[in-house]
């Protein structure tokens, strides 16, 4: 039963799976009180899947922790109630709470590697749940553990029981965690970013599993994620959290097709939609940043960033008004008539005003569909970026092998590619396919075993330490982790000054630093601060400024926006596009997010098991005919579009080890279009679909095009793992 169909004032038939009422949670850190949740109310009916979305720092995980009574020692519940299946969580005794977790409520955490004990065999860990909760003996519990592993479709449960967590892949580990969470049939399953650290293909498998399990178990689901696509796939209802407040909630389909709060709308516009490219349109961003915890807010929590803000928004915070309905307009009239003294109002308005299936905390819900767009900044065409001048970079036959004990892991195997001035080369592939190693070989952080980097006609030395200052200046890198990319002991200005001193081409250092920080839109006041005082987006902007200190020709970007929230990610991507248009710089852009790569790249290379298996223009690679692996990768992206019916191609098994790659075609062990022995025994030829678009497969382009454009029903869909 979903809340949408729940009749108003229905008699309390069955208690909700989760009923959060006016919840206020405050953290106490270094002598300060930081309110994290400010009067959150939400209700998840039994068997319902509810998605909670919002940027990091909005309070999503805190809400889950409060529901599990797992709040950190410095967090307190100041007001409100959490009821799980009708039971007030705060009234449970310490002993009861341990039993209650697992039987009533269970959680799946973001990182499966840390959720499992590394020192215990999988069997013992899963069996422990049954022994503790159902008092079984060891043999019975092991038998039940085997059953529950089978339920999450783990291949060969018997051998898995005997393994240690490190012997399983990330996806398999997450399956075990899910099996443990579901072991004793809890009424509420909390999933906190369950697929965030996983590859797109594995993510898709986990989602399939959760979807399939929902048909068989009757647990309600609370899905916490920043990925709107996940919510759209799994959930019936959505709540959008901003700065500790629910700003919009309602049925998923309604909210995703017709958002009625400016924040929801902003979030959805930030994500590059599938197939979008930088030359089509700039990404929308949300200006400003999430208010810091403890920062005093006047009026609507979103007013400081809202493009539709009006005086009344700052004057008094809106309630959660029913949409569609008249309560928003009434609330607005009341707020406008009220005296302009914020202190005169109660600090929170948690309860939904009016009945109705959906609510938005905005006076102007009716106008959200017409929310102004930022002026689009389009990227210039490749020619305008100087691509006609020819190749700037050429990588010839590059290989790199690492030693791991007696094993030899080939991370990059005979990769060749070239790059033109002002061009962006996107590199995609699952983790462990060798993308980052290739990038580090290009910059000289790792010396390749064989192969050359030719830059503007001159062959470069293998390692950065041996390259000239000029060569270093020309090829720079932007790293993935905003928290470790800047030296925490240096001020931001010192970091940029040093980079300009070492790489700059003369002139006033101070003027160059100021120009760089202006180019990346970091206000001068932040230059005095240390990286720990900056937000993730600001740190990444400084890191980009540092890479541009010597006016580089090529910047290698290794997942530069992956660790950031979508709104920040969009602004970083826009910044990179803008800098490219201005400076005619080339990028090698690595990302596991295919929509992002599609958006920013002119050409794309797909890596699988250390080899570049497909190269072509962004458009060609993303459309048939393309390599079966690319086809499978593309089919695994969760979409926000409700009308699109895509058939997902599940890859069989897990990625083979780099130390022992399969014979013939490297992809044949997982390929859904395998032809037979030829794929197993013969290395595939390089096929040319159109000029400049090549892939390695035994299937010729015409045939591949026919197969891939055929009706989805004909597509062989293999289920789960072999």
């Amino acid at each position: 039963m979903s809340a949408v169909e729940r009749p108003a004032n229905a008699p309390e038939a069955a208690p909700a799976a989760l009923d959060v009422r006016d919840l206020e949670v405050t953290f106490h850190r270094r002598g300060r009180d930081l309110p994290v949740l400010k009067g959150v109310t939400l209700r998840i009916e039994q068997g319902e899947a509810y998605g909670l979305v919002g940027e990091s720092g909005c309070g999503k995980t805190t809400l889950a922790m409060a529901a599990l009574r797992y709040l950190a020692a410095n967090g307190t519940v100041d007001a409100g109630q959490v009821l799980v299946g009708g039971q007030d969580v705060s009234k449970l005794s310490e002993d009861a709470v341990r039993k209650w977790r697992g039987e009533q409520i269970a959680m799946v955490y973001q990182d499966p590697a840390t959720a499992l004990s590394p020192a215990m065999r999988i069997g013992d860990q899963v069996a422990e749940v049954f022994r503790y909760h159902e008092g079984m003996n060891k043999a019975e519990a092991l038998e039940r553990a085997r059953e529950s592993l089978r339920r999450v479709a783990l291949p060969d449960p018997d051998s898995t029981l005997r393994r240690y967590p490190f012997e399983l892949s990330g996806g398999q580990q997450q399956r075990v965690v899910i099996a443990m969470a579901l072991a004793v049939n809890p009424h509420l399953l909390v999933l906190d970013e369950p697929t965030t650290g996983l590859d797109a293909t594995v993510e898709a498998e986990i989602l399939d599993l959760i979807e399939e399990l929902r048909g068989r178990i009757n647990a309600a689901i609370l899905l916490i994620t920043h990925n709107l696509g996940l919510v759209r796939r799994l959930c019936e209802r959505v709540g959008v959290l901003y700065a500790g407040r629910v700003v919009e909630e309602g049925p998923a389909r309604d909210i995703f097709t017709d958002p009625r709060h400016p924040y929801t709308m902003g979030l959805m516009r930030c994500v590059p939609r599938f197939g979008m490219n930088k030359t089509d349109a700039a990404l929308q961003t949300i200006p400003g940043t999430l208010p810091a915890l403890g920062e005093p807010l006047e009026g609507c929590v979103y007013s400081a960033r809202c493009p539709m803000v009006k005086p009344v928004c700052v004057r008094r915070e809106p309630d959660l008004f029913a949409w569609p309905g008249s309560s928003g307009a009434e609330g607005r009239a009341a707020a406008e008539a009220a005296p302009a003294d914020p202190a005169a109002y109660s600090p929170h308005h948690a309860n939904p005003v009016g009945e109705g299936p959906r609510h938005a905390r905005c006076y102007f819900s009716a106008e959200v569909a017409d929310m102004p767009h930022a002026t689009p900044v389009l990227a210039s065409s490749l020619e305008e970026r100087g691509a006609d001048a020819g190749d700037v970079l050429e990588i010839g036959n590059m290989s790199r092998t690492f030693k791991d004990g007696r094993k030899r892991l080939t991370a990059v195997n005979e990769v060749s590619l070239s790059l033109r001035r002002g061009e962006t080369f996107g590199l995609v592939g699952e983790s462990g396919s060798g993308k980052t190693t290739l990038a580090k070989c290009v910059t000289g952080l790792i010396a390749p075993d064989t192969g050359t980097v030719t830059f503007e006609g001159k062959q470069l030395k293998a390692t950065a330490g041996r390259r000239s200052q000029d060569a270093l200046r020309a090829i720079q890198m932007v790293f993935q982790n905003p928290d470790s990319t800047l030296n925490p002991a240096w001020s931001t200005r010192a970091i940029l000054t040093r980079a300009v001193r070492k790489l700059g081409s003369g002139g006033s250092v101070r003027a160059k630093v100021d120009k760089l920080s202006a180019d990346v839109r970091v206000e001068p006041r932040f230059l005095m601060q240390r990286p720990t005082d900056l937000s993730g987006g600001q740190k990444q902007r400084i890191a980009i400024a540092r890479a541009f200190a010597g006016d580089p020709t090529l910047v290698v970007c290794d997942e530069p926006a992956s660790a950031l929230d979508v709104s920040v990610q969009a602004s970083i991507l826009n910044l990179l596009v803008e800098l490219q248009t201005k400076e005619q710089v080339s990028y090698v852009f690595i990302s596991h997010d295919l929509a992002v790569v599609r958006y920013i790249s002119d050409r794309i290379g797909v890596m699988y098991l250390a080899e570049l298996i497909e190269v072509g223009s962004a458009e060609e690679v993303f459309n048939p005919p393309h390599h079966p692996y690319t086809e499978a990768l593309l089919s695994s992206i969760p979409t926000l579009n409700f009308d699109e019916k895509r058939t997902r191609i599940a890859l069989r098994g897990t990625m083979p080890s780099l130390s022992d790659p399969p014979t013939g075609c490297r992809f044949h062990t997982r390929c859904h279009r395998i032809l037979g022995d030829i794929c197993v025994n013969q290395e595939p030829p390089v096929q040319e679909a159109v000029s400049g678009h090549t892939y390695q497969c035994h299937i010729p382009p015409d045939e591949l095009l026919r197969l891939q454009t055929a009706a989805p029903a004909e597509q062989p869909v293999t289920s789960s793992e072999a």
Partner: protein
Amino acid sequence: MAGDGTNLGPNPDLQTEGWRPDADPEMLELQADAASARQTEELHADAAAEREQRRQRRYLVRALLRSPTFMTGMVIVLFWVFMALFSAYVTQSPTNVDAAASLKAPSVAHLFGTDELGRDVLARTMAGARTVLIIAPLATILALLWGGIIGLVAGFYRGYTDEVIMRLIDVLLALPIVITSILVLSLLGTGLTIIIITIGALFTPVVSRTVRAAVIGEREREYVMAARLRGERSAFVMAREILPNITQPIIVEGTIRLGYAVFTAATLSFLGFGLGPPSPDWGLTIANERIYLQVAPWTVLFPALALASLVVGVNLITDGLGRVFSK
């Protein structure tokens, strides 16, 4: 984008004119207010950033001040530092011989009693802190300096350099500290400088291991890679990039070594490798007076307790620092 069923508002390519917040005069005013507020805020931003840093530092200091472990240790150690410097003004003379009052039990005149030469044990105990408090900190600083450099080099270069250095360190670690010191001091003769250098050298291997471990944790971080891509020399990366980020483990290691150095210094002087009589040094006193242990236990008891209290005090500081840093 076309045909996708999501209503995300007007297409930006077709329409950029939408509803603008500045259409409303009252909103304009509000925004102007906000802008001027932002400007003032920016003017004060540097000050604010500095305030925030000061606040963080103050927090650390306050956390230390609130830690009973750290404070107890600090009171004990500061007491002995004070006594080492000013005991002459507080107590009787530690070297004033009074044959008539030899081996007197504690009394009002001599709170800790007197030794075989009638010297005041209280005065000698208080003054005895001096040598230990010269040797131990200086030896520790030497060990941190040498160990820091070795650890930085081994951890930063890794590979062959690291292997060679660490195997040498392993050999040095296998040497028993006291026996080796005795050997060195017998060869080179005693004296404050040589004792300090010997203890410093013998503590170097342990320090270098700690520093190496910390360096290995930092060197793979991306800011170090960025420095390499900038063409920085290795010495610069070690001293300016990595070192400032590993000061906390180095400080904690330093206080641990300090405790051991106090102990080692006292042991050496007990064995006769420190200052000679009539110095009131604790180790020396315990060695000299131990023959009177049966008849006049106070002559040994008080210097021994003093020594123990100083070691305990230093260790309490270590504990307190470690706990506050790890928070």
